[in-house]
C-alpha cells in the first residue's frame, strides 16, 4: 500500500466529505454572533465550543467547516476551468503549429511574465471581490502550465503513425484532437491538476487574507486567519486552527499528487525518484 496515496487520499476525502456535509456537521451557524461568548478558548470535548470562539463570538469549528466548502469549491472550479482552457489551447497550439502556435505562445509569454499571485491581486484589485472574480483571477495564470505541457506532448504525438493514419482517413482536426490525442494527454494533466488544486487553495487563502477574496460575510480560512492576526497575543486559536486546516489540506493534496505521479510516470518510479 502506498503510504502517500493513502494519507493524501484520506485527507482529500475528508475535505470533500466536510465540504459536502458542512451544514450537517457544523454545530453552529458560522455567522451567528454571540458577543457574550466572544474569545472563548477551545473547549475541546467538554465545552460548548470545540475550537473556541472569535472576537464576535462566532464558533471557530463551524467556520472552519464552512471555510472548507469555499476552499473546495474554488479549488475544483479553478482546476476544471484552467484545465479546459490550458489543454484545449495547448492541443490546438501543438497540433496546428504556425501562426496559431505563435499567437498562443505569445499570449503564454505575456501571462507568464506575471507571477500567479501578482496577476490574481491585480485582477481582483480592479474587478472587485466576489466568488466569480476570485475564480477568474486564479484561472488567469494557472492554465499556462497545462498549455505548455500539452503543447509539447501534442508536438511529439502529431507525427505519429496513428495520427497520420487518422488524418489520411479524412478525420477532421477537431476529431483527431478530441478522440485520438486527448486520451494521450490526460495523464500528465491529471498530475498538474492535483498540484494546481493545492496551489489554488493556498492562493485563495492568501487573497482572502489580503482582503481581496470573497466578500467578508462568507467564512474562509484566509479571512479567519486575517481576523485572528489582530488577537494573536490573546487568542492564539483564532490563527492556529484555520492555518492548520490550510496546511493539512495542501499537504494531503500534495501527497496525493506525488503518489499519482509515481504511479502514472513509471520511468520516474523505476528510478525511485519523485519531485
Amino acid at each position, binding site marked *: 500500500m502506498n503510504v502517500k496515496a493513502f494519507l493524501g487520499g484520506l485527507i482529500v476525502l475528508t475535505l470533500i466529505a466536510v465540504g459536502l456535509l458542512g451544514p450537517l456537521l457544523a454545530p453552529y451557524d458560522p455567522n451567528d454572533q454571540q458577543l457574550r461568548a466572544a474569545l472563548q478558548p477551545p473547549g475541546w470535548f467538554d465545552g460548548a465550543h470545540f475550537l473556541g470562539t472569535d472576537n464576535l463570538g462566532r464558533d471557530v469549528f463551524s467556520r472552519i467547516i464552512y471555510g472548507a466548502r469555499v476552499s473546495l469549491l474554488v479549488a475544483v472550479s479553478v482546476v476544471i476551468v484552467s484545465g479546459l482552457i490550458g489543454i484545449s489551447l495547448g492541443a490546438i497550439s501543438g497540433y496546428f503549429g504556425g501562426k496559431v502556435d505563435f499567437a498562443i505562445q505569445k499570449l503564454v509569454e505575456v501571462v507568464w511574465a506575471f507571477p500567479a499571485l*501578482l496577476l490574481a*491581486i*491585480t485582477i481582483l484589485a480592479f474587478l*472587485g471581490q466576489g466568488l466569480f472574480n476570485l475564480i477568474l483571477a486564479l484561472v488567469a495564470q494557472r492554465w499556462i502550465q497545462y498549455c505548455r505541457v500539452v503543447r509539447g506532448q501534442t508536438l511529439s504525438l502529431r507525427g505519429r503513425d496513428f495520427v497520420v493514419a487518422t488524418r489520411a482517413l479524412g478525420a477532421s482536426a477537431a476529431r483527431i484532437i478530441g478522440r485520438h490525442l486527448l486520451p494521450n494527454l490526460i495523464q500528465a494533466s491529471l498530475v498538474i491538476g492535483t498540484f494546481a488544486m493545492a496551489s489554488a487553495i*493556498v492562493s485563495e487563502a*492568501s487573497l482572502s487574507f489580503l482582503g481581496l477574496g470573497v466578500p467578508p460575510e462568507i467564512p474562509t480560512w484566509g479571512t479567519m486567519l486575517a481576523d485572528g492576526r489582530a488577537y494573536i*497575543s490573546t487568542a*492564539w486559536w483564532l*490563527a492556529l486552527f484555520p492555518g492548520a486546516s490550510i496546511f493539512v489540506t495542501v499537504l494531503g493534496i500534495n501527497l496525493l499528487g506525488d503518489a499519482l505521479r509515481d504511479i502514472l510516470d513509471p520511468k520516474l518510479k523505476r528510478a525511485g525518484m519523485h519531485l
Partner: protein
Amino acid sequence: MTAYLLRRLLGTLPVLLLITLLVFALLHAAPGDPASLLLSDATNEADVLEARQRWGLDRPVHVQYLKFISAAFTGDLGRSFRFAQPVTELIAARLPATIELAALAVLLALGVAIPLGVWAGARPNSWVDNLGTSVGLFGISMPNFWMGIMLILLFAGTFHLLPSAGRSTYGVAGSQESGFYLLGSLAAGNWPAVKDALMYMVMPALTLGANMVGILMRITRSSVLEVSHEEYVVTARAKGLAQRSVVWRHVLSNALIPIVTVAGLELGTLLSGSIIVETVFAWPGVGSLLITGVTSRDYPLVTGLVLMYAATFVVINLAIDALYAIIDPRIRY
C-alpha cells in the same frame, strides 16, 4: 551569446508593452471612479471634476494609455494619487527593503535546500532522504502567511526573542539614506545596526524562503538522483574517487540546469510571495506598497508596481538563459 541576449532583450519589449496594455485594460474595467473614491465625502461635483481633470482621468482611455507609455519610456511612471509623489520615487524608496529581504530569503533557501537535496539524492531511502523529503513536502505545503503568524506567536509573543514587525529599532538603523540597512551597516562596520537589522529580518526571510526550500530541495534531490545513474558517474566511482568528490564535482555540476531553472522561476514566485510576507510583518517594501495602492485604488502606483514586478520577472528569465551557458559549456547561443 551577446547577440542572442540582445535579441532576447529586444524580444521582451513587445511582451512588456502587452503587459502594460493588459494592466491598463484591467484598470479601466474596474468599477468605481478613483477621483470620487479618494476625495472626502464632503467634496462637491465641481471638486471631483477638477480632480479628474488634474489627474487626466477625463481624457479618452487610449490617450491616457499613450501618455502613460510615452512617459514610462523616459522613466516617468506618473504621480501617485494617494501620496502625491512620483511613483518612481516611491518605488525607489521602498525597493531596497524588498531587495534585502528577498536576497536573505534566497540565500537561506539555497543554503538549506541544495546541501539537503544533494545529500538526500546521493543517499536515496536513507534517514537523510526521509528528512529531506519531509522538509520538501512541508515547505511546499506551508502557507507562508500562516508560517509568519506562527513564528510571531512563538518568537515574539511567547519567547520575546525577536521583534514582531517593522524593519529597525528607532535610532539604531544605519545607512537610512541608501535604504539598504543591512548592507549599509555591514559596509560601515556598524555592528549594533547589523545585529538590529538581522533581528528584524530573520523571521520574514525564513517565512519568505520556506516555500523555495521545499521546491528547490525536491528538484535538487530528483536531479541528483537522475544524474547519479549516468555512466560517467559510475566511471568516476569505478576509478576510486571519494564519494564527496563524485557527488559535488561530477553529479552536482551536471544536475545544476534544472535546479537553476526552477530557482529562477521560484524567484518570481518569491517576489510575489513578498507581497504577503511584507503585509504580515509590516515590512516597508514594495509588496506592502502594492497592497496600499490596491486598497486605495491608486491607479498610477499599482500600474507602476505591476510593471516593475513583471519587468523584473522578464529580466530574471533572461539572466537564467545567460546562466545556462556558464553552467553548461555545451550550450551555445
